[in-house]
């Protein structure tokens, strides 16, 4: 049974139609990548899945929960769907550890010591246990993003959403974040990633969904999309990406 089903989703901001009937599905353990030019609706699609943005029509299901139903408990949903942001959005007034324990204490109801233990575990997972007491301003972009990933992981989500996790990073810092993401993928985490990181897509993605103007133009495994795309639009976009280096 699929973990995530997106069925004919439409979404608009004011008069501007952003998503025009997007459909795709993911099984448990899948790693899918959303690609497409800016304005194609990738980030909006992600935000619809954890209800940071509301759909106009269409259904999104997580297991047997209808995410898009008006009576869905969004706070509960968001525990199950973690999110990693382009600009990290670490809580600026809290240490790396505090960023992780806040949700553990306030949402999952753990006491201080348990929250601390688990937070340290997740920091170890992203290789930052030694930075537990550092504030975001004291960390590099790559380190901040790894804390962001640890923060999302700590809620033990069924699905992790990544919204351009490396595009705000200096090129030399991209690698450490991609490495963490590849480890997560290898560990069986279900991940939906908006990214133009070709290296990650090749090494970790099961499927790539190419979005353009609010529609899924083409879906398929990376080797198929990168080597033999069926649609001209996909081909021209991807060749542009490849000639621009790894982004």
């Amino acid at each position: 049974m699929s973990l995530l089903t997106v069925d004919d989703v439409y979404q608009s901001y004011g008069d501007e139609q952003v998503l025009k009937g997007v459909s795709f599905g993911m099984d448990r353990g899948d790693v899918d990548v959303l690609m497409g030019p800016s304005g194609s609706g990738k980030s909006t699609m992600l935000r619809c899945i954890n209800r940071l943005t509301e759909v106009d029509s269409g259904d999104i299901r997580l297991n047997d929960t209808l995410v898009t139903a008006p009576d869905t408990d969004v706070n509960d949903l968001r525990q199950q769907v973690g999110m990693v942001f382009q600009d990290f959005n670490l809580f600026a007034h809290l240490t790396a550890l505090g960023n992780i324990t806040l949700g553990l204490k306030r949402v999952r109801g753990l006491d201080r010591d348990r929250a601390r233990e688990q937070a340290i575990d997740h920091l170890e997972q992203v290789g930052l246990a030694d930075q537990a007491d550092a504030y975001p301003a004291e960390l590099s972009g790559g380190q901040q993003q790894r804390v962001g990933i640890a923060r999302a992981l700590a809620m033990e989500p069924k699905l992790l959403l990544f919204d351009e996790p490396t595009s705000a990073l200096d090129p030399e810092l991209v690698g450490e974040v991609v490495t963490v993401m590849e480890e997560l993928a290898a560990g069986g985490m279900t991940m939906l990633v908006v990214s133009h990181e070709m290296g990650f897509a090749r090494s970790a993605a099961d499927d790539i969904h190419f979005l353009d103007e609010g529609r899924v133009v083409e879906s398929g495994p990376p080797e198929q999309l990168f080597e033999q795309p069926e649609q001209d639009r996909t081909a021209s976009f991807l060749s542009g990406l490849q000639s621009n280096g790894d982004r």
Partner: protein
Amino acid sequence: MSTVEDVSVADGVDTPWALLALAAFWGWLAVRWGNDFLLPESVAFPSDQPFVPVAPVAGAADSLGSVAGSLGPVGAPIDVLAGLFGFVAGSLPHLPALARGAWLTIVLTVAGIALGFVLAVPLSVARVYGGRGLRWLSLSYTELIRGTPLLAQLFVLYFGLPLTQVIREVPGVGVGFVPAQAFWVAVIAFTLNSAAYQAEYIRSALSSVDAGQLTAARAVGLSRIEGIRYVVLPQGLRYAIPGWSNELVYLIKYSSLAAFITVRELFFRADAIANDTFRYTELFLLAALFYLALVISASVFMNWVEERTAIPGIGGRQRA
């Protein structure tokens, strides 16, 4: 990235000698209050007597004056010194009364800012994050208070409303050193007034917290209210500290308006003594020195708070 102009009166004032002078001022106040309010009369130093006897100081002023007179024009500096001693000798007898006035000024200010803060936080949150109705309500309150004179607000509460009768009935009011009803009306007025100004400072500070912070909080599963409480406010309130220092300094001085509804605070005492003795210049100069000491103390204190609560990247003076 403060949104309010820098109000660090204490920059350059927190030098050792200035801190020493402030420590002496507060030490004297504490001893004076302890003696006058807490010690039983049988063992206390007379509460209407200055600790330093007047006669020797007055005598010194006189002898310095005559020395200056005998030296002619060359004695001018000594004459100035004689004047200073004269001022001190003239001031000493009034210090106990002014210390009592300062007590009310301080309690009034601290109560106004603290209780006002309690109101200001929900007001500002309603302004930034509330729905249309809440936003409108908060805006109306803030503009009504900020758009009318504080003195008028004091008069409405004191003369216009039956507030005094109600407070008078509260057991303990006006007994011993618990101040009478006018003081409590003033506390209410300063609370309501300060809440509006503080809400403005906090509102602009909240707006400067990046929107992604609340989004991230919600993405973790915190409700909107929890996100505001645990993520936005701890950052926004740090940004609000410079504005808050400003408000504290204003409130210390504006508390003198309470004199117009018969609260016997610092200005009221100085004014009353001046009317009795006709020594207006001396008394108001003395009152000004008290206010100056209080304002500088507040600045030093708020700078300390700002340093203490600073976090790398937020607040404190290391920020760009």
